[in-house]
């Protein structure tokens, strides 16, 4: 029992560290990708190729003067970034990182918990993500922050619906809500080939839920100064930015797990891997998939301009929502025709 708890604790700790490091290096990656796409070099001063840049940024963030506006709601002002960070990190609990490892007869699952409503859990935590932004934006007592907060909440609620409906079509096919089961089902065929429309809708909604360009209206520098984090400075601002990158990491992980086979390696059976080598390879493959999607997020950000607000709402309610319902309908008909319902 104690060793079990210790293992889980250690696993959670490792996950946090990995998530934070990935988030840190995403900031570096973002600047590098942006630079490459714009025929520039990007950060290259701190360390070879600038790989120490995130550390320098972190030190800078910590050293900066912290400003808390006089007119702000102090407690909620502090609560905002912490909530954003908390909800960003909470989702990672259900991601399966590989098949279980074996050490002298003991099995160590590479998943923190495989609750049988894993997808609903993810969905629940994602729906809480808006609180960090709303509370921070409101507590700043600044009109730009408030506008950012309002935009964030309406945007996230709108896209949550389409996201949920997209997942429902997937769940109809998989027949389970557990992420572990969904990943192991994709041993032969990835879900993206079975549910391409669902994947597309989920991907677009993931952009909207993480407030990434082209859906970054809550922060929208050109219209709202800095949006919900206008009044934030120092590490509290860092928390907001970090939460965004962790969200990106987690959404990439969820997309890989739901649609791209998770830790499954293509043609895994032909490789004849055994023992603990397989989980390690699987972890690396999943990580590669995640990194690809993080790159994809950045790629899109530096390609597509920001939506206008009415376009955003139109896309969500008039585009993605009917499309998701249509997808459910098609899935239902196909499942009925193939005799999956008994």
């Amino acid at each position, binding site marked *: 029992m104690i060793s079990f708890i210790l293992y889980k604790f250690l696993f959670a700790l490792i996950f946090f560290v990995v998530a934070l490091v990935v988030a840190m290096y995403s900031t570096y990656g973002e600047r590098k990708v942006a630079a490459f796409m714009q025929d520039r070099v990007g950060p290259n001063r701190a360390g070879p190729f600038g790989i120490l840049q995130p550390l320098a940024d972190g030190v800078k963030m910590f050293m900066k003067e912290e400003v808390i506006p006089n007119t702000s709601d102090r407690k909620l002002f502090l609560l905002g970034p912490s909530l954003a960070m908390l909800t960003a990190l909470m989702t990672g609990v259900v991601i399966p990182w590989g098949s279980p490892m074996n050490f002298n007869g003991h099995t160590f699952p590479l998943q923190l918990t495989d609750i049988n*409503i894993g997808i609903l859990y993810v969905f629940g935590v994602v729906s809480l993500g808006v*609180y960090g932004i709303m509370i921070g934006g409101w507590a700043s007592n600044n009109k730009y922050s408030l506008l950012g907060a309002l935009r964030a909440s309406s945007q996230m609620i709108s896209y949550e619906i389409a996201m949920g409906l997209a997942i429902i079509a997937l769940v109809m096919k998989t027949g389970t809500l557990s992420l572990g089961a969904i990943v192991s089902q994709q041993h032969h065929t990835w879900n993206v080939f079975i549910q391409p429309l669902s994947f597309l809708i989920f991907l677009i909604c993931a952009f909207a839920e993480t407030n990434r360009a082209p859906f970054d209206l809550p922060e929208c520098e050109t219209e709202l100064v800095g949006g919900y984090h206008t009044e934030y400075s120092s590490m509290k601002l860092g928390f907001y930015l970090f939460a965004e990158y962790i969200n990106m990491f987690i959404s990439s992980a969820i997309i890989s797990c739901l649609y791209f086979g998770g830790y499954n390696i293509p043609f895994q059976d032909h490789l004849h891997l055994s023992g603990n080598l397989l989980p390690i390879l699987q972890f690396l493959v999943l990580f590669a998939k995640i990194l690809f999607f993080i790159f994809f997020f950045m790629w899109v950000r530096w390609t597509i301009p920001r939506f206008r607000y009415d376009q955003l709402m139109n896309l969500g309610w008039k585009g993605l929502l009917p499309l998701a319902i249509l997808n459910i309908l098609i899935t239902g008909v196909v499942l009925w025709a193939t005799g999956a319902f008994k």
Partner: protein
Amino acid sequence: MISLYLFYFLSFVAILSALLMVFSKNPVHSVLYLVMTFFAIAGHYFLLNAQFLGIVHIIVYAGAIMVLFLYVIMMLNLNQAIEPMKSNLQKLAGIISAGVLSLVLIGAMRTTEIKAAASTASEIGFVSSLGKILFSEYLLPFELASILLLASMVGAVFLSKKELD
């Protein structure tokens, strides 16, 4: 024993934050305290092994309904300064009547005899068993609920349109 302590902890959080919700002057604080209450109630659901309801409770109440409340309060810019308050006498009367109500209800509970439980199947709260009931016995109400949601959506859009004519 752990479950008992958990029960007391969750109940304490639920009741305390509910009270704070009623008594805090700032509407935004009220909303956040109510969210906390809902989390405690969701915790109760998990304790009772009603996983599906617990997570749906969080998604629907904390994730959607309370965000909507927060949204409206922020949009109308209701704050402490313009918050209408009742006189202290009215408040006292309210507290007394609510207290009396709770006393009556608890008294009624104490004198009522509840039949002993038949069986405690542990899997009733799971998605699969709940889904079976929902889509067999309660299929018609389920469909009606979807129509109700659609109607309310249309109604909300219609009501919040600025120009009706």
